């Protein structure tokens, strides 16, 4: 079973704060992490490999420092990792990114049985690259997967549970397929000491636009239909931050009054 996992390095947004003076994002000292949803993607690939055998290939597109997230993937047990990085990718929106990642999968992994992505990245929050990759690869997509119920390699089929707004949809799909996974699917393992050592020493191949045979008109800013006109801080919440002070028998009815006045409670 050949599995490709797509991961992204993102800022750990716990640390992202707004500078009250300049009203901009303070990035100093913000740590970079593997996108949390992608950790579930890597873990699910490892679990499938344990059950069905095969190889886990992990791909990340990003700047050179994104190599760190690939080292983490190696440390937990990925067979092969690849960084795809090129100045020519700069300014890529989700269409150009999906094209680049799909080209990379074809170039380095070849015919895959399964592609696994996180449901979305926590910096951009688009959830568009997974479906984009599936479309580019011409394989079906199963988004928001919370459980793999069955994989049948002979019959080339997979049955999964998708976590939707009103419940769980059980879907059967042909293989190869692309899954995007939610947090509920597993609990990612920690790397072993041996794994960390191995990852530290590993040479991680870096692929350029040329290496993956990308069409220069379909990558980076050139291959992106959308562009960011303006970036700004959200308006501060109108929340007056009114702390109701006093004894509870007085404060509780006061809060209830305020909430009843809103007419939202029926």
């Amino acid at each position, binding site marked *: 079973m050949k599995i490709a996992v797509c991961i992204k390095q993102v800022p750990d947004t716990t640390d992202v704060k707004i500078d009250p003076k300049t009203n901009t994002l303070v990035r100093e000292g913000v740590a970079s992490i593997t996108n949390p949803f992608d950790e579930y993607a890597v873990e699910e690939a490892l679990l499938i490999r344990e059950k069905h055998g095969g190889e886990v290939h992990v791909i990340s597109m990003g700047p050179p420092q994104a190599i760190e997230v690939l080292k983490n993937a190696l440390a937990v047990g990925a067979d092969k990792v690849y960084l795809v990085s090129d100045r020519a990718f700069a300014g890529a929106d989700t269409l150009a990114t999906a094209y680049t990642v799909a080209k990379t999968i074809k170039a380095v992994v070849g015919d895959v049985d399964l592609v696994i992505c996180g449901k979305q990245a926590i*910096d951009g929050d688009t959830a*568009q690259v997974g479906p984009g990759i599936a479309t580019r690869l011409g394989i079906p997509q199963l988004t928001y997967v919370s459980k793999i119920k069955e994989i049948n390699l002979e019959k080339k089929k997979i049955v999964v549970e998708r976590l939707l707004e009103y419940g*769980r949809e059980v879907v*059967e799909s042909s293989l190869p397929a692309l899954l995007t996974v939610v947090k509920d699917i597993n609990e990612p393992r920690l790397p072993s000491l041996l794994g960390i050592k191995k990852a530290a020493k590993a040479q991680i191949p870096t692929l350029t636009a040329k290496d993956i045979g990308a069409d220069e008109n379909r990558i980076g800013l050139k291959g992106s239909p959308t562009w960011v006109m303006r*970036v*700004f801080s959200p308006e501060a919440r109108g929340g007056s931050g009114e702390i109701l002070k006093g004894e509870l028998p007085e404060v509780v009815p006061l809060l209830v009054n305020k909430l009843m006045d809103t007419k939202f*409670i029926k």
Partner: protein
Amino acid sequence: MAKLLIDKDTCTGCESCIPACPFGALSMKEGIAVVDEKCTFCGACVDICPVSAITLEKEEKAVTIDITTYKDVWVFIEHEFGKVGSVSFELLGEGRKLADAIGCKLCGMLFGDQETVDKFAKEAIAYGAEKVYVMEGPLLKEYRTDPYAKAAVDLIRKYKPEIVLFGATTQGRDFAGTVATTIEAGLTADCTGLEIDPETKYLKQTRPAFGGNIMATIQDYPNYRPQMSTVRPKVFAMPPRDDSRKGEIIRETLQMTEDQVRTKIVEFIRGAETINLADAEIIVSGGRGVGGPEGFKPIRELAEVLGAAVGSSRAAVDSGWIPYEHQVGQTGRTVRPKIYIACGISGSIQHQAGMKTSDIIVAINKDAEAPIFKIATYGIVGDLFTVVPMLTQEFKKRLGR
């Protein structure tokens, strides 16, 4: 390739551009600002530079399509379990404004079996659609990516809308990503603001990023059409319904057979909750402070009195006190109720990312220093196990329940 140019002679080394960069791509080198490959050419630094030392050189794209052939604003009418998603009506309301600003028609795009299509096309018209493009048949009975994407791609290629809007629901996001990739159009995710540029008549799409810490306004280059967006539910108001409105229904046939559809829905397991987080007007949420699974009892009791859904922070889910589908926040769901009551939730940035656009936030926490109080409309510093049952009692009294 686009370039961000920093004029070495003009740059005074004031460093004001460095924190302005949302992507951390700027740094100081020998007293002047330098840019690295993390730059996405967003232009945030260009505006902030007090001496105009930074310029953005964007490559002009060769216009390869005739955008005057693209007309009208389309809204995808999504439905599930025999009901149109309310976000679709909200989008018809907002789409009306966009269509009026451009001077074009507002249209619906609807797929389903014959019965649903007949019923929902009328509803779309009642909420403002002038035309509804429909495809019907057993393959389209429930949403599945393959037949829906095929239907939408064929319609969009034939009728060339200039704007297509989808709800940013699980269905809308699964669907729009596939359609946009197939037709190679721009797609902006999870928008909270839509506006027509008065001069160019292009769509300006505003959305939160970085867990809501920054907002970005996004536009499509004029050589890509249609302009497509998924839009967050409950951001726009429901438009008035008028069943006397008349509209045109345009029927097309799906060119696909069941054996070409690669997925099959085996079953649907309805969630155990009667009130769902996605729809709830009121949410009562519990966090680390509830202390265990039984700690959700007072939370549930308050929710029941208020007709509210039960939410939780990540801490409570990770501790195994409540299932994941209740999790609000960055790795859970994003919600936007009228009232969000946070009980024993400290209010980490990740939790805030999922709920801070709620109209009214109530915080109940023992720790007066908890960050949740900074974004709360009203707060009570106190033990949730005392405060929440008192609230329940008081509401019961007032509501006569």
